[in-house]
């Protein structure tokens, strides 16, 4: 992994078209500004993680596997839709 040190107001390029500027760095947070072509998606890592996991979740769970899981629950709720 390339490691570079930058201060607030400084920036760096990724390739010719993507510029990342350090807008603010205080405490444990860094605020970045990113200039990139529209066709380059810029996504937070946790969103990418959830996106990947959602694609897995959208695949049907095999019926027998789901039924086996439901049977394994000790006292399944009759009304799953209840407030917190």
């Amino acid at each position, binding site marked *: 992994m390339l490691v570079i040190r930058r201060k607030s107001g400084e920036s760096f390029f990724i390739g010719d078209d993507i510029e990342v500027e350090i807008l603010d760095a205080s405490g444990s947070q860094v605020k970045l500004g990113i200039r990139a072509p529209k066709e380059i998606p810029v996504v937070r890592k946790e*969103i990418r993680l*959830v996106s990947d*996991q*959602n*694609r*897995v979740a959208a695949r049907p*769970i095999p019926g027998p596997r789901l039924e086996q899981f*439901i049977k394994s629950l000790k006292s399944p709720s009759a009304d*799953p839709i209840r407030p917190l």
Partner: protein
Amino acid sequence: MPLVQTQQFGELQYADDATVHFPHGLPGFELCHRFVFIQRPDLAPVVHLQSLETPEVCFPAMPIHAIDPNYVPVIAPEDEVTLGLRPSSPLNPAPVNPATLALALLAATAEGELTANLFAPIIINMETGTAVQAVRMDSLYSPHYSLEGAACS
């Protein structure tokens, strides 16, 4: 009653008040905004969120507190705005709104293990039918929480 075509359950009728609206879609499914709850008594407490726009998109889910009774949801300010909830204060980062429901999406791994996404629960304002997938900024909970041997209440 309107009808919805589903890949898993065939053609179903649904009531308008059973629909849920995700204004921003879900990560990976940004064009899916409208879903309907499918609740079958034989599958309780698992429910399915069926997309009204894309028949093949259907998420199994279950109430997050049935998986972890001590689960503390954290809703980002922008998600609170989307949900129409009163913004929380630093002293109350996890508002418990009686009209709010938290669901965890379920998934099966390639090996057949069932997991729940506790990292990004579905939060629904049941009064308005508005929903978001609230991605946590901390790492307290896993997106692949194993349900094998889970003791659900």
